[in-house]
């Protein structure tokens, strides 16, 4: 096992006082805490920093560690044969929010939580297994009704003191009307409980897959509808898609880009709310390559008093 240099991990001198140690820890914790930093590796780095702080903030534990450090461990570290594990240890061998500490820590301070050392019926070491969260992409169409799907994930488990990741597959019912960002709980489907503790819960974090046609705004759907200049000017009947099939839409004469048309009840649905479909018009200019088209536009230009920049004239 590799010797951990807690001073180097926190970036403090060997004679640093508690104030310096705390300051260094806070700075690193703010950078690497997994609730503040989702980068890969941040969580492992935070565990390392939390472990170093756990030792160096406690005078007795720090003294024990310093003694071992002088004993001279770098690579291939083993505690001295006469080392008494757990001296000055208050029994909390996990981080404040339940982080597991390294084998190095456990070998020095007599514990950490290690299932191999405790029987399954040992109530003092019973606690709930780790909760887990996975992102589940859902198509908009699939939110309109309850559907079932297979979810694959892996959970960490302890075997002979080692952490192993076990792959699991679950068939779950995704309720109708799930929204982006919602979390669905599967009780007892995550990390195995320690001792007599219950299994952790698995949370499915719903992510709505971006749709090629529709955008989502709350319970409403937005559809950008391209129309020609003459459809916008003269009005038109256009067939448009919705999540549940096609419908006919009437465009009024003199319509504009950005104009919104609301179609009631064609948005996303939950048990209590049904959203609307908002159709946003986008007037698209055709390519004017033919002489005939140019002539027609020129006739309009000659006869029209229209100035699209009237707001600029003031």
């Amino acid at each position, binding site marked *: 096992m590799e010797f951990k240099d807690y001073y180097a991990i926190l970036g403090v001198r060997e004679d640093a006082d508690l104030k310096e140690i*705390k300051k260094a820890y*806070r700075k690193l*914790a*703010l950078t690497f*805490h997994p*609730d*503040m930093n989702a980068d890969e590796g941040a969580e492992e780095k*935070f565990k390392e920093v*939390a472990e170093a702080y756990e030792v160096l903030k406690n005078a007795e534990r720090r003294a024990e560690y310093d003694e071992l450090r002088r004993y001279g461990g770098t690579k291939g570290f083993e505690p001295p044969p006469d080392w008494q594990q757990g001296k000055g240890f208050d029994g909390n061998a*996990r*981080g*404040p*929010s*339940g982080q597991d500490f390294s084998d190095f820590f456990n070998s020095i301070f007599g514990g950490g939580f290690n299932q191999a050392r405790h029987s399954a019926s040992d109530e003092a070491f019973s*606690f*709930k297994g780790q*909760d887990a*969260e996975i992102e589940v992409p859902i198509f908009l169409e699939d939110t309109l009704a309850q559907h*079932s799907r297979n979810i694959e994930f892996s959970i960490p488990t302890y075997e002979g003191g080692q952490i192993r990741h076990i792959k699991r597959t*679950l*068939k*779950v*019912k*995704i*309720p109708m009307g799930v929204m*982006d*960002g*919602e*979390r*669905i*709980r*599967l*009780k007892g*489907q995550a990390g195995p409980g320690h001792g007599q*503790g*219950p299994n952790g*819960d698995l*949370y*499915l974090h719903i992510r709505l897959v*971006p749709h090629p046609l529709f*955008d*989502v*705004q709350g319970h409403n759907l*937005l559809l*950008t509808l391209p129309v020609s200049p003459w459809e916008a000017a003269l009005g038109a009947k256009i067939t448009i898609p919705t999540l549940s099939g096609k419908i006919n839409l009437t465009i009024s004469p003199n319509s504009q880009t950005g104009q919104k048309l609301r179609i009631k009840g064609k948005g996303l649905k939950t048990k209590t709310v049904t959203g609307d479909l908002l159709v946003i018009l*986008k007037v698209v200019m055709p390519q004017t390559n033919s002489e005939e088209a140019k002539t027609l536009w020129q006739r309009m230009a000659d006869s029209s008093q229209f100035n699209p920049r009237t707001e600029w004239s003031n």
Partner: protein
Amino acid sequence: MAETTIEISVTELYAVEYITPKLVTEAVDLGIVIPIEGASAKDWVFDTNSAHWLKKAARLYLDLEIDWVAVCMVIDLLKQKEQLLRENAQLRAQLQRFI
């Protein structure tokens, strides 16, 4: 077929190793989370997103050794950040359809 729910009772929350009644009461008093059911603390029920924020708040409080007012501010900013990122992504997608 695994059973799904979008709720968690306060008693179930206490089973999480680092969640204590005092932590839950602090988080509710400061408005970090709001129970969806239960007149008294022992009967509180939370939605699963509240459970997510409550656990996050508890970890920040315990790991960073900061007070509850600071935790409340951090959680509020994290919630705002999440909301703004989502809105930003939606607006970018809409903008792309107009270009």
